[in-house]
């Protein structure tokens, strides 16, 4: 029996490149087909999840109204021929007497691993938050994902005032603006706070203008 290890003839660069290119194209084609087949159901699930989340962050309003951000003003009607996916949206919530409860605003920002998308209920007149829910996040399991699973953290957003101020767990002066961040998930919890502060500052003038115009308050 020979001790020589059989030598494999080298493969040409062209064949290597062609193999990877064809494999990539086939993979891409399959993924596009599966994406097209699953997307309608995924979008329907997301719409239902959003509807339930709006109810949660606005503390179960009696009615809601969808508003679109068109040319830096809020309107319930889309321009003719426009798709609603092209415009940022907020949900206005009203109580049984028709009084405005607040607005549910979705906003996202880069977290520790990926984009963190947050929905929060906010009343711009009182500058009080009504609730917060993480819609999408791929933060580290067991650490960063506590921003949606830690009920103590999430519960703080039900009564805090904007602009929010993140403080270490167990620290702070007890002010309404303070949010105690999660130990071990400081970046993720800070991202949630920044998302709300940025979105509140961005939307405040539009919401105020809409309240003055539509409700006349």
């Amino acid at each position, binding site marked *: 029996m020979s001790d020589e290890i059989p030598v494999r003839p080298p493969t040409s660069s062209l064949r290597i490149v062609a193999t990877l290119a064809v494999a990539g194209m086939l993979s891409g084609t399959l993924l596009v087909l599966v994406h097209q087949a699953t997307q309608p159901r995924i979008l329907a699930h997301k719409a239902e*999840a959003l509807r339930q989340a709006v109810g949660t962050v606005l503390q179960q309003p009696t009615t809601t109204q969808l508003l679109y951000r068109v040319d830096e003003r809020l309107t319930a009607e889309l321009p003719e021929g426009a798709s609603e996916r092209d415009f940022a949206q907020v949900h206005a919530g009203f109580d049984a007497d028709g009084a405005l409860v607040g607005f549910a605003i979705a906003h996202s920002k880069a977290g520790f691993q990926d984009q963190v998308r947050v929905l929060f209920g906010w009343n711009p007149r009182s500058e009080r938050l009504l609730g917060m829910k993480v819609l999408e996040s791929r933060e580290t399991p067991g650490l960063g994902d506590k921003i949606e699973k830690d009920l103590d953290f999430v519960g703080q957003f039900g009564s805090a005032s904007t602009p929010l101020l993140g403080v270490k767990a167990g620290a702070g002066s007890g002010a309404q603006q303070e949010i105690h961040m999660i130990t071990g998930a400081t970046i993720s919890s800070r991202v949630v706070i920044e998302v709300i502060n940025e979105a509140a500052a961005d939307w405040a003038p539009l919401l105020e203008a809409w309240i003055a115009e539509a409700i006349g308050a």
Partner: protein
Amino acid sequence: MRQTTPSQDLFRGVWRENPVLIQMLGLCPALAVTNTVANSLAMGGATLFVLCGSSLFVSLLKRLIPHEVRISTYILIIATFVTVADMGLEALVPGLHKALGAFIALIVVNCMILGRQEAFASKKPVGRALLDAVGTGTGFLVALLMMGGIRELLGAGTLLGFPVFGEHFEPWVIMILPPGGFLTLGFWLLGLAWWTERRAQRAVPTDGTTPQKEAA
């Protein structure tokens, strides 16, 4: 490579070479997502699907894939099936998909799957590769269910969400938290090691002679 029969290919991965309990592969999802039986089922099912799909294509294309880029190509094939599983779960069971979070995408780096492609599927015909994938995937699913069942039962007092112990049961919350994964896996491994040793001792003849090895 040692010659095996089709039934050995199928059943080897289920128990004798179970990827989690014997080979200690794929421990990251085994520890992280087995806090409920439903999560274990979804993760085990997704991994089984990826393993079968990848083994099928790797075995089919083994003569076309140059040796120099075989690992890259295997990973591309595995990643494709993981993405398909990810989108399928999101469309069919969004709650479970959200509960499993990043761990579905992390199936790509499960060394058990790449290991089966390199060690078996790339050297065997399609049928044998599929049998091996089904056996190994089922073994992974069984191990996840063994952990998920214990953790949900003790950590929440339920099985698949149905109460088992009644309302007076105080759940051992630690079992559904990360330490519960380590504890459960540790106790399973302890129990299996004890059982294996006991079987080995019983196989020793009582007259003190050592058992003769079977003819090769």
